[in-house]
């Protein structure tokens, strides 16, 4: 059995930053488990940048401004004390990344360059061309290598195991290469496993990895899921893949067309047309598709963005990146063809309920959560662009600090018995599920979940459809119990890993649905057709969903912390 002081799960920005923090402490046994090589995570896909008030470009920007922009962006659902704590730490973490060697673009004064981003008063988004997440992740990996962080690579989290006193005892994980269940005892555990966008399968900008494994494991271990219904969508994902395409295509004057060749925005926003706000555009696209005026079917349906009427120079110069994406992933050169597009799921604002933002601690002693997997909450109902990378490194470090402090004050718990039981249980489960010769294929269950979640609990939500979805999810969860996996091999059994992943996604999808049903209002990214207005009197609070002993979900609420910014109407 492996034995550590601090164990981190997940190798994105938050996970690696947490591991690095623990590794900086002399004498601690630290390890990081990851289901894939550490530079592949969703962090690598973040393009735009990382927010922090450095005043390298805008001298007049203040911490106060960044706090306000974040709170307003969250539609007042963020906890303001947590936001204040977060914003105050952003600059030091960015400077530290710089010191670690991150190749940030530079100003003429040789400082980190900063640019404008949506919803922010000043240019405060630090960047490295359009590869900010990629360079940050690789830099963190370099530092982890330097500090000899012990990576348990190709190990996959199965369950969190608690000691008798209810604190963290360890985890059981699937050693993918060896094909066996491993027991890992640890005093402190940091979960940084990212979001769950893959519940919409191809309609997400997230990597295949974003399957909510850590969220689901924490949920089973007794943590609440906070505001799971808060899922951010982007109106223009690429049609076939869901890859994010910047809004510049609309900004520069591109048309959105349906299969009749009509600029359908005339029916939804006659004056603003394509330049209408994100949610209006997203709704228009989905309506066109629902009413049969798109191309393709199911999750593959799309409308198109057409820029062919624009001057060639505009396309080549200002839409250069978009053109590359369209050619590579849609096989469409915007100079001669329209680009298939459709909204895409981008980010999970909700997640593992963090009880103490100063440590990232949860309700389970010794269990910490950070990054997209966690809900601190600093993003509330809507995250600002550039705040996710900042979230990852700030709370990655905070969780690392929290875990280290916990280890200093607490002895390792003996959870050998519980670990054995859990490991034996999973070993049996592996044999049983992979040995089945009948049942519904796991990919079918995944696809039905994705399609119905998209249609019923996607961008636009209403009671009846969500009730339908709840029934569908309950049925899928039943079918999951007898599903067909189809691969009995032990070595690198991705079918088994995919099976567990779909289980995580179903678990989270149900919480998203229940959360969305509870919240009978529209706030930030959560848009209810039947409750179009924000309702502070009843819903200026967090959704909190826990798992009961009998396996039922309990839906509750908790207070939003408001310190200095009273909720106002959110206009831009």
């Amino acid at each position, binding site marked *: 059995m492996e034995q550590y002081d601090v164990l981190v799960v997940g190798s994105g920005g938050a996970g690696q930053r947490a591991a690095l923090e623990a590794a900086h402490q002399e004498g601690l046994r630290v390890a990081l488990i990851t289901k894939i090589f550490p530079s592949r995570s969703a962090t690598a896909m973040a393009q735009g940048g990382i927010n922090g008030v450095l005043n390298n470009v805008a001298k007049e920007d203040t911490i106060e401004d960044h706090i306000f922009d974040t709170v307003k962006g969250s539609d007042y659902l963020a906890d303001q004390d947590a936001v204040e704590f977060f914003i105050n730490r952003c600059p030091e973490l960015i400077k530290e990344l710089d010191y670690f060697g991150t190749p940030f673009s530079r100003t003429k004064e040789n400082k980190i360059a900063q640019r404008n981003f949506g919803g922010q008063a000043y240019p405060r988004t630090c960047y490295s061309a359009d590869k900010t997440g990629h360079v940050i992740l690789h830099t963190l990996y370099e530092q982890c290598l330097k500090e000899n962080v012990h990576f348990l690579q*190709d190990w996959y989290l199965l369950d969190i195991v608690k000691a008798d006193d209810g604190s963290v005892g360890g985890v059981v994980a699937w050693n993918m*290469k060896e094909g066996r269940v491993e027991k890992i005892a640890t005093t402190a555990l940091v979960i940084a496993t990212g979001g769950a966008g893959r519940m919409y399968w191809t309609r997400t900008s997230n990597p295949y990895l974003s399957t909510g494994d850590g969220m689901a494991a924490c949920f089973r271990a007794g943590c609440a899921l906070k505001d799971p219904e808060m899922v951010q969508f982007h109106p223009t994902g690429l049609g076939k893949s869901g890859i994010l395409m910047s809004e510049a295509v609309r900004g520069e004057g591109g048309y959105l067309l349906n299969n009749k060749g009509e600029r359908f925005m005339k029916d939804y926003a006659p004056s603003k047309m394509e330049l209408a706000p994100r949610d209006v555009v997203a709704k228009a696209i989905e309506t066109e598709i629902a009413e049969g005026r798109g191309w393709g079917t199911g999750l593959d349906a799309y409308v198109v963005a057409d820029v062919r009427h624009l001057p060639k120079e505009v396309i080549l110069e200002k839409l250069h990146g978009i053109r590359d994406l369209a050619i590579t992933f849609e096989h469409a050169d915007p100079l001669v063809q329209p680009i298939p597009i459709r909204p895409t799921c981008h980010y999970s604002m909700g997640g593992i309920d963090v009880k103490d933002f100063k440590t990232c601690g949860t309700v389970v002693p010794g269990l910490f959560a950070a990054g997209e997997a966690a809900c601190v909450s600093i993003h509330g109902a809507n995250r600002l662009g550039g705040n996710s990378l900042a979230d990852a490194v700030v709370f990655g470090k905070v969780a690392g600090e929290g875990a280290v402090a916990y280890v200093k004050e607490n002895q390792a718990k003996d959870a050998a018995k519980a670990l054995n039981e859990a490991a034996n249980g999973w070993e049996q489960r592996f044999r049983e599920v992979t040995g089945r010769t009948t049942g519904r294929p796991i990919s079918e269950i995944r696809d039905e979940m994705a399609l119905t979640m998209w249609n019923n609990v996607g961008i636009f939500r209403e009671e009846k459809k969500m009730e339908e979805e709840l029934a569908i999810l309950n049925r899928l969860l039943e079918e999951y119990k007898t599903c067909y996996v189809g691969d009995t091999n032990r070595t*690198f059994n991705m079918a088994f890993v995919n099976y567990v992943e779909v289980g995580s996604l179903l678990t989270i999808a149900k919480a998203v649905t229940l959360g969305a049903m509870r919240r009978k209002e529209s706030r930030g990214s959560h848009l209810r057709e039947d409750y179009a207005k924000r309702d502070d009197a009843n819903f200026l609070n967090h959704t909190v969903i826990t798992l009961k002993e009998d396996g039922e979900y309990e839906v509750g609420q908790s207070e939003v912390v408001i310190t200095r910014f009273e909720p106002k109407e959110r206009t831009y």
Partner: protein
Amino acid sequence: MRQITYKIHRYNEGRSYVQTYSFDYEPDRTILWGLQKIKDTIDPTLTFIAACRSAVCGACSIKVNGQAMLGCESKIDDITERFGSDTIEIAPIGNFDVIRDLAVDWEAKVNRLKTVAPWIFMKPEFNRDMGSRQTPEDFKKFVTNTECILCGCCASECNKLSANREDFLDPYVYTKANRFVQDSRDAAPMAHVNPAFEHGLWKCVHCMNCISRCPKHLKPAKDISELRAVATKAGLSNKGTRHAIAFKQDLMQTGRLNEVTMSLKTDGLVDSAKQGLYALRLWAHGKINPLELVVPHKPVQGIKDVRTIIKAAEEAER
């Protein structure tokens, strides 16, 4: 209905075999989409790795018709058109240990990466509280190398690695080393150059497969070349260095290479004799006149210009 056929090189627990799968053609689909389609609808045991499916994470590199590429950005239409066939051969990338089917073992590569100290030794004038400073021009000098996504495509068809992996590093490792060597903020470029020099820097055979394969258009062979230049300037010398310097000396003296003296300059007298003098080998093959050992080549017409140019270039480098 048009069918696309994948012939996949599979491997599991010691057994290698080729398995053929066919599925309905759809336009504008990627190679990775085809793999997912097979796993979902034909054979759940087919094993491959993928993550971002947008060519930024490096997970899904595979060999397609013998050539390493990212499955996510390679289109079935392009491959079938380019190779003139609807049957596509797919294999794991080369020069990696295969775990299963198309999944290769990256863990084994980490220690190789660590050889060159792939992290920055920040100059002492910078610190954690202030970060670093760098001019936009200096940033440009190395930023391209930071675009490496560690996909391994450069290593897949590297002929040197295929011949022997033990005394040479994967091309991306040299690219990573050079990323720090060229970074104005790094205080210890030789901390990256020295281990690179010790681990095969001069053993690259210039097959140029790395440059041809890189999906990010990086140039590992050029990085190797740049590292060699830095190493040479720092006085690190071996057979490769001496060989290259001998070329330059010949260029300066006569404008052209003297094959006869080349082996002596490169190997030294003892080694040359041990291996069978290269010149003797040439002589034995009737390829040279041994008199050239004693009668030097005549300089080319315009040698004065050549010397002026080389000196001017050396001056400009200073």
